């Protein structure tokens, strides 16, 4: 089976791209234009593309391997287990005492789904970046960072255990920091980058502590791989231990801490304030990192460790409620934003909340399905927004757009597809995933959560339609100076828009519940999240039919769209002022920043003030006192250190006498 040996190549290829582009960037640091855009862009797209093809090959390879065994079973009447994954242990990472950590990769159904869209959409966004960043001096540096991000994201997904995942987890955090602060000549961008990094540190600390607690439960001799963890939790021999009070409490703490890590990376309550600020980065970064891939790694981790989380019912409750609360809060916030990218950022947070809600009620596969479809439609929305910003020469304020549907038809068509998907209109990608999700929430989570989710769906339709109206349909408010050279994006930017636009219309058919045969997606995940999901007995066995629920969902979307048109069609958004948010909008948007300030920042500032004004003088006074004492002693002992042979000899003789006295009269009794 040669397939396994290819696994390391998937992250290695983007690393190669990073090294080449990084070297190009460094080598040309002193030139005026930097390295050739063509060369560096070609390389940056080439390596992710090869990685994508490799993932495809492995995907079908795994499928073939399973078919071979299935055929054998059928022909020979055997019951061999189907191969569920390719694994490639690369080297022993830490081997000390009982602990034996191996560094390796594992490729199974979940990984394959994640990698397909990470490398696929990643390649498209790289292609898009060639056009978007063409006039930027830091082109090669940008491409290098993007490739590095992709490599780390692949490591995160492909790692055979949480420690390897953590490596990628930190790596994507670093790349996120580098790319948010990519235009580092503006302080605001650097502040945003630092904020993202610091907020993520809090989450990462939770991740690590949760992991170590989990390891404590498993015992150090358990190899820390996902497979071993899943097997440990699936083993009936351990169910008694898991039911005991101490272990259950430890497990709840551990999973809550792990979930804290997920809230940091996936911008959930309470660690969500960094994501809207992260829009300071270039738009392709927002599309790739802060919409399609990195921010979904929290959901990925929960699904990966689903066997652990299902044993902590309290944590699952917390996840579901935090997901619902985040979704609702962010949807309201999205409603009052004036910056097109901020709208999309809050929309991302809201959709991530949906995913966590699904995971929290035990529907891991539908949560992941929403990750999958969201990657398509949110990527196309961001890329479309990028195209609009590009056309308007950097303008991001919705109040200065309008009437762009005729001027930017391709961008409009692509964003329309994204809008169609996210609002959940029939047969778009969001229709399938969101309705499935709502159905699971109603069956397994109860009516309260369902009501919140449905309300959020209406809000989603409202604010997304508002964004579309203000950008494309309402009368133009574009400044005249800008209006003259509004132009459609270059081909490198259009191709990804086409592909992703089509993708956001059809991606949902990977799991179209109502159409028989369209269940590729859950089949992929069955072996990973199936046992965990089987533990969740729906609250209501006899729920309303799927068709009825889909009808409710579509009605909600239509209601939202209609409301939005009613509110904004007449151009209610007439004011042309550049005024920042104020009043309710400001208070609501910055709610969590305020909480962070009160809970985190002000205590630190106060304690640092105390340290600086009170403790620091005390300590330095103490240090000075000691220094003074030492210098006094030095003055006193200077006398002995005169450059005189006789004095030195006398002192050493005295010392010898003392040592001899000790040896002769005391050490003898000691011995």
């Amino acid at each position, binding site marked *: 089976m040669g397939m396994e040996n290819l696994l390391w190549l998937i992250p290695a290829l983007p690393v190669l791209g990073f090294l080449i582009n990084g070297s190009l960037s460094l080598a040309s640091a002193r030139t005026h234009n930097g390295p050739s855009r063509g060369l560096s862009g070609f390389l940056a797209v080439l390596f992710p593309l090869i990685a994508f093809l490799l993932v495809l090959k492995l995907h079908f390879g795994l499928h073939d391997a399973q078919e071979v065994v299935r055929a054998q079973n059928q022909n020979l009447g055997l019951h061999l287990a189907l191969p569920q994954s390719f694994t490639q242990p690369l080297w022993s990472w830490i081997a000390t005492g009982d602990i034996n950590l191996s560094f390796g990769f594992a490729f199974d159904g979940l990984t394959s789904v994640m990698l397909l869209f990470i490398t696929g959409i990643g390649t498209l966004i790289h292609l898009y970046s060639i056009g978007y960043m063409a006039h930027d001096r830091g082109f090669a540096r940008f491409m290098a960072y993007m490739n590095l991000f992709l490599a780390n994201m692949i490591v995160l997904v492909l790692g055979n255990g949480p420690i390897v995942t953590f490596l990628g987890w930190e790596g994507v955090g670093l790349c996120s920091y580098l790319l948010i602060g990519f235009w580092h000549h503006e302080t605001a961008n650097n502040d945003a980058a630092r904020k993202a990094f610091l907020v993520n540190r809090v989450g990462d600390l939770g991740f690590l502590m949760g992991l170590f607690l989990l390891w404590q439960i498993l015992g150090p001799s358990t190899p820390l791989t996902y497979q071993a963890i899943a097997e440990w939790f699936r083993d009936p021999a351990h169910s008694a231990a898991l039911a005991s009070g101490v272990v259950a409490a430890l497990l709840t703490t551990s999973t809550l801490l792990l979930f804290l890590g997920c809230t940091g990376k996936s911008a959930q309550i309470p660690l969500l304030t960094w994501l809207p600020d992260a829009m300071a980065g270039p738009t392709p970064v927002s599309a790739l990192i802060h919409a399609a891939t990195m921010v979904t790694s929290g959901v990925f981790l929960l699904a990966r460790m689903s066997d652990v989380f299902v044993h902590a019912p309290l944590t699952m409750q917390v996840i579901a409620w935090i997901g619902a609360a985040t979704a609702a809060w962010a949807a309201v916030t999205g409603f009052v934003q004036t910056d097109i990218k901020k709208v999309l950022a809050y929309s991302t947070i809201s959709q991530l909340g949906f995913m966590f809600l699904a995971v929290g009620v035990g529907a891991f596969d539908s949560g992941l399905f929403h990750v999958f479809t969201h990657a398509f439609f949110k990527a196309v929305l961001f890329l479309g927004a990028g195209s609009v910003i590009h056309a308007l020469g950097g303008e991001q304020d919705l109040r200065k757009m309008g009437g762009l549907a005729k001027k930017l038809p391709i961008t409009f068509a692509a964003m329309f597809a994204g809008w169609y998907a996210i609002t959940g209109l029939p047969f778009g990608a969001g229709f399938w995933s969101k309705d499935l999700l709502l159905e699971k929430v109603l069956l397994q989570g109860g009516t309260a959560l369902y009501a919140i989710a449905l309300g959020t769906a209406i809000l989603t339709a409202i604010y997304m339609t508002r964004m579309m109206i203000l950008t494309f349909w309402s009368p133009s408010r574009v400044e005249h100076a800008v209006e003259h050279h509004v132009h459609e994006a270059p081909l490198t930017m259009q191709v990804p828009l086409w592909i992703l636009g089509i993708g956001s219309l059809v991606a949902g058919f990977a799991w179209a519940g109502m159409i028989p045969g369209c269940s590729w997606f859950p089949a992929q995940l069955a072996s990973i999240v199936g046992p965990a999901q089987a533990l969740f007995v729906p609250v209501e066995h006899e729920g309303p039919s799927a068709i009825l629920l889909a009808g409710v969902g579509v009605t909600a979307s239509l209601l939202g769209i209609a409301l939005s048109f009613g509110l904004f069609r007449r151009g209610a958004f007439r004011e042309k002022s550049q005024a920042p948010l104020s009043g309710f909008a400001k208070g609501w948007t910055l709610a969590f920043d305020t909480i962070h300030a009160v809970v985190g920042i002000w205590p630190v500032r106060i304690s640092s003030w105390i340290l600086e004004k009170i403790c620091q003088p005390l300590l330095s006074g103490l240090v000075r006192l000691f220094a003074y004492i030492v210098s006094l002693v030095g003055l006193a002992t200077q006398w002995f250190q005169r450059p*005189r042979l*006789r*004095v030195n*000899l*006398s*002192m050493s*003789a*005295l010392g*010898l*006498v003392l040592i*001899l*006295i000790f040896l*002769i009269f005391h050490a003898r009794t000691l011995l």
Partner: protein
Amino acid sequence: MMGQVYFGIFAAVAVFCALSVMFSRHPINGAMALIGTMVSLAGIYSLIASPFLATIQILVYAGAIMMLVVFVIMVLNSAKEHTIPVVDGMGPLGLLSAASLGALFIRVFVGLDDKASVKMNPQAPRGDVEAISQTLFGSGTHTGGWALLFLAIGLVLLTAIVGAVLLAKRHLDTPIAQTEGGH
């Protein structure tokens, strides 16, 4: 009993002369006092049945070595060594450390008196020329084996002579100013 009396006399002379070495102002006085100490020690050597070493002590030590010292003192008689004080500010410190070392040794040796295993052995052979040469060059199982060391000492003496000649020669014909500059 007479041995004790002689020992007391020799010991008193030796210590008195040693103190004279310590506190005499002119080196020639010190050298003379040192010869007195050595002669007294030679007397003590013969008291404890070591006539050969007593002879060597007088011939080599008090005779040859001290002769050399006195010769050099006289060569350098023009030096201003009288102006150097016998005991200066550092003196008490040196006296203290030397005295404490001596006191420690004495404290240790006083304890020897009541140790049966370190009593004097009246049957020990006399250290006359024949016995010592047997020990040095003899071929018995328990004697001898010192011959190589004896030869090595000869080489050391030769080296010392060569070194002394080189040291003295270089500076004898080198002007002082050049030597200063060279350092």
